């Protein structure tokens, strides 16, 4: 089932035990952040804060998609669905474009409209997420909406935004991102401001589309993922459309020729890595919001939060799509969230020598490349969602000399802890492939090892007898 908005989604989380209401007043200055961080580290339910100090009438939702259970609910599955099941549903729903997004005349996000001099970002309960953060982060679970001025292609991207003053925000709009590419190539050189709208608290599938690196325009992707057209309304002051049921919309311009220091902030690898540095400035000219608004937010730190879970999940599946489009014999791809989306595990069914290298090259040359460093390629009989099996495959299948290939001076992300300051600034990195497959030319009779397990080394009737008698032997079922 599709959720019309964030509120319906939260009601569903309450029903499955994956959300809770917090009636007691909480402080936006660190307390809310500390609660959400602890929720992420404990795998706890998403808290809806119903009373926020200094902000009567406002509510906030923490860690909306920080567990696979919540992701399952967002995609209309039972909360206990396995990661493999969730992955297959995601791939299936987004195999082909779904219904076209629909423009509607108005929607709940227009219930309150503030424009011009009345705009004051401090009317929103932006949290101070971690002690020492460079500022209050208003946008950590959101989308920045923009349009390419030449092609009119729409982009939704999740690019964090920190509050500077009543009208101003700042954030890393990296040239590797879709909106960043348009801003840095098409607006900045002409010294033209770029219109934007930041949507905070869209329905869950729209938020997933914004955080994933998807091959289509995100409104189309979101509609396919939810199975129903996303309803969009026109903005008040810019020529852009935003989801009609969003909680809060900030409209304005991204300023060329102006930068302000941004950060530090907790980042997806679980560290403060990138420095406080001059970054892109957003000027806000209008705010629209729903009655009884809810401001959702993620809290990046050690695993598992949305920055890791959702990015790992979607990057892995987009990688699978890319490999399939190349006709490579790939069974499954999984990025474990605890790898901070640095590790891509790929299973292959192949008789081709060095297939692991071919797989890795296809991924290193893709749009996804800045976000990960390691590719582990295993045979298809390894359950890639079972990390014990994957470690077993690495330690028994990967030759420490021949099996590991290292690519120096490749590309990387500004937030990667193991890169030097220079590498982070320049977006440089390195990559490695771990080939855990056995060479197809090894003689099966002499050279190829045979896996020994209950599943593979006993006749069918013995296995069936053992399973049938398990309780009688005295084992708990």
């Amino acid at each position: 089932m599709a959720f019309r908005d964030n509120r319906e989604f939260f009601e569903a989380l309450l029903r499955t035990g994956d959300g809770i209401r917090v009636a007691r007043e909480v402080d936006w200055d660190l307390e809310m952040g500390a609660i959400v961080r602890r929720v992420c580290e404990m795998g706890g339910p998403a808290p809806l804060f119903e009373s926020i100090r200094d902000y009567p009438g406002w509510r906030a939702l923490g860690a909306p998609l920080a567990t696979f259970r919540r992701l399952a609910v967002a995609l209309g599955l039972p909360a206990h669905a396995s990661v493999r099941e969730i992955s297959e549903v995601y791939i299936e729903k987004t195999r082909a474009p779904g219904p076209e997004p629909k423009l509607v005349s108005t929607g709940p996000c227009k219930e309150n409209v503030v424009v011009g001099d009345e705009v004051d970002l401090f009317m929103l309960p932006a949290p101070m997420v971690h002690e020492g953060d460079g500022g209050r982060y208003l946008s950590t679970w959101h989308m920045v909406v923009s349009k390419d001025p030449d092609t009119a292609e729409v982009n939704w991207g999740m690019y964090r935004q920190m509050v500077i003053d009543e009208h101003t925000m700042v954030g890393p709009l990296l040239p590797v991102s879709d909106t960043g590419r348009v801003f840095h190539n098409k607006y900045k050189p002409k010294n033209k401001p770029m219109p934007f709208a930041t949507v905070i608290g869209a329905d869950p599938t729209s938020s997933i589309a914004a955080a994933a690196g998807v091959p289509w325009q995100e409104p189309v992707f979101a509609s396919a993922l939810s199975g129903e057209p996303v309803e969009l309304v026109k903005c008040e002051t810019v020529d852009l459309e935003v989801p009609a049921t969003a909680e809060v919309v900030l409209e304005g311009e991204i300023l060329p020729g102006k930068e302000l220091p941004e950060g530090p902030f907790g980042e997806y690898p679980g560290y403060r890595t990138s420095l406080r540095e001059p970054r892109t400035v957003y000027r806000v000219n209008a705010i629209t919001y729903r009655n009884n608004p809810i401001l959702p937010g993620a809290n990046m730190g050690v695993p598992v939060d949305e920055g890791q879970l959702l990015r790992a999940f979607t990057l892995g599946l987009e990688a699978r799509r890319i490999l399939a489009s190349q006709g490579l014999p790939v069974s499954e791809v999984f990025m474990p969230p605890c790898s901070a989306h640095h590790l891509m595990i790929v299973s292959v069914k192949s008789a081709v020598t060095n297939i692991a290298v071919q797989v890795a090259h296809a991924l290193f040359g893709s749009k996804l490349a800045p976000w990960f460093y390691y590719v582990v390629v295993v045979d298809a009989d390894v359950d890639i969602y079972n990390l014990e099996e994957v470690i077993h495959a690495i330690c028994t299948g990967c030759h420490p000399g021949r099996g590991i290939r290292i690519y120096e001076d490749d590309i990387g992300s500004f937030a990667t802890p193991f890169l030097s300051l220079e590498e982070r600034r320049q977006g440089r990195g390195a990559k490695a492939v771990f080939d855990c497959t056995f060479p197809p030319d090894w003689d099966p009779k002499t050279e190829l090892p045979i896996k020994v397990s209950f599943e593979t080394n006993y006749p069918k009737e013995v296995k069936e007898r053992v399973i049938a008698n398990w309780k009688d032997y005295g084992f708990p079922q």
Partner: protein
Amino acid sequence: MEFEIYVSRLEELPVEQECELLIRALTPSDRRKKYKYQKVRALISQQKDRYPDLLWVRFLKGQLHTDPYSIRIANTKGATDE
């Protein structure tokens, strides 16, 4: 009043000379405006009692320097004003 500034090294702070700084407010009268940034022309001192207001210092990864400076603000403008 208390303010805060980020620096990569303490030596960057131009003590006892009028200078322009980007600082944020920690104790505004309207608490909702806490952490608002502004550009100021000011004098600062490493002695915390020399000027009327306190200036806390953090490094670029957010670590707080234990000893605050003091600051006298001559005038204030918006963070994006030239």
